[in-house]
């Protein structure tokens, strides 16, 4: 249910565009408080948005073309009020999106999501790729860490100038990548020997519970999201813009 909620929220966030401040409060903080994850939510969202936010604010604050009302002047660069306004709008939008996604991440385990999708008819192969991808990222990072340690023991210099660091990446990245690829043959054999290629659906041990109320809520959210996007495109709700 959370999945559908969040997806819909994000869609609205993109479509609603300006005035997503309201959005953030209602659709993100509200459910977050209800689910008890508000603290982590705020922290994680801010962390996630920080790089984008800084870039966005700086770029738009200083480089907004056509800005008239000058706020600040640092040498050749001027900060304009229009730029500030635009920057804040972008910031709010970013917060809405990041917040929604973070809410999703905090309340849903990715494995559960994939199981749910498979339960509803997504092919077992897609589910496999999704699950395996999520597990492979930490595995590969760990492997890179092990290789780094091994290479350091052999005298690889990983500190120092940027150029040295870039050069030092290759003896780490290459074995990690090639090692993962070399395993593919063995893993293919193991999987096929366990019936992976059997056509048709496979048995699932469990699936996330659902209820009628949740299904209705999902449809409403979806409909609401679409409605808002259409309204915006048609120019019916200028006060939100």
């Amino acid at each position, binding site marked *: 249910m959370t999945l559908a909620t969040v997806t819909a929220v994000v869609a609205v966030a993109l479509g609603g565009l300006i005035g997503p401040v309201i959005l953030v409060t209602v659709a993100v903080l509200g459910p977050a408080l209800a689910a008890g994850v508000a603290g982590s939510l705020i922290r994680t969202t801010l962390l996630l948005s920080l790089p984008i936010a800084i870039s966005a604010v700086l770029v738009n604050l200083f480089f907004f073309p056509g800005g008239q009302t000058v706020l600040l002047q640092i040498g050749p660069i001027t900060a304009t009020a229009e730029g500030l306004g635009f920057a804040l709008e972008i910031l709010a939008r970013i917060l809405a999106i990041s917040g929604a996604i973070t809410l999703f991440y905090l309340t849903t385990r990715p494995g559960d999501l994939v199981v749910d999708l498979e339960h509803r008819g997504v092919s077992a192969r897609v589910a496999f790729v999704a699950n395996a991808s999520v597990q492979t990222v930490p595995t590969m990072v760990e492997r890179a860490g092990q290789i780094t340690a091994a290479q350091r023991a052999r005298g690889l210099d990983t500190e120092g100038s940027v150029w040295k660091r870039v050069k030092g990446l290759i003896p780490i990245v290459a074995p990690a990548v090639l090692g993962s690829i070399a395993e593919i043959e063995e893993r293919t054999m*193991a999987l*096929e020997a366990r019936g992976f290629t059997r056509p048709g659906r496979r048995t699932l041990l469990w699936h996330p519970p659902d209820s009628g109320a949740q299904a209705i809520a999902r449809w409403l959210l979806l409909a609401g999201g679409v409605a808002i996007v259409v309204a915006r495109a048609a120019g019916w709700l200028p006060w939100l813009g």
Partner: protein
Amino acid sequence: MLALESVTYRYAGALRPSLREVSLTLSEGEVVGLAGPSESGKTTLCLVASGLAPRTVGGTLTGRLLLDGDDAAPLAIHQLAGRIGIAFANPATQLSGVADTVYEEIAFGPMNLGLPRDDVIRRTDDALATLRIEALASRHPARLSGGQQQLVAIAGLLALRPELLVLDEPTAQLDPAGSRMVADALARLADGGASILIAEQKTDLLAEICRRVVVLADGAVALEGPAAEVLADPRLEALRVAAPADVRLSRAADVARLPAAQRERLRGAVGS
């Protein structure tokens, strides 16, 4: 139950065949060992017996593979999956990569076969119990030791309730503790009447659990017979196969002309 009739197999793009006119029979409940130096065809034989060669790995097969008397050629690999289980030397690459717990990992095979949910659960529980790894059920497969992972892999095969287990050097990449764990588990399986074809360079394991041993050289059968006989055969060294430790010690004791009582003690100390 499983029979290879004059099987010659060549990998795709290879100049020479890896198996030459190999014939082999396995009866139900038999534990057969496969010995031989590297590149002698042990792995290839395992792949052919399980059907992976040529289905998954390509290549050309001449001769026949018979399963319960029927030619296995028209069967697809997923149909063979429920009848023959194969395990390899590297414990980590046999993990499905999609299971968060050992339980789900073992259930992976039955789930793929589309069996009813209760069946899947029962088979998984049975496999855990047979290998005595119930304690590992909720652990994450990637964080286990090599020996534990290998046991999970074998459990995953047992959950498929195969007629035959093919094991390609299962202890080759394990440390001594892991090897011991797996060896004990296999011994119990053998005692329980499982049909196993096990390839190993370490002939000690074969001496422990096999009733018959086949020695391969250069893709063809060089020796075949009851385990004790074959493993004590003096021609083993010429075939580049290391005899089991107790055989070697016996020979050394013979050469040193130790009295019988000391020889017995030596054998007892070695035959663990």
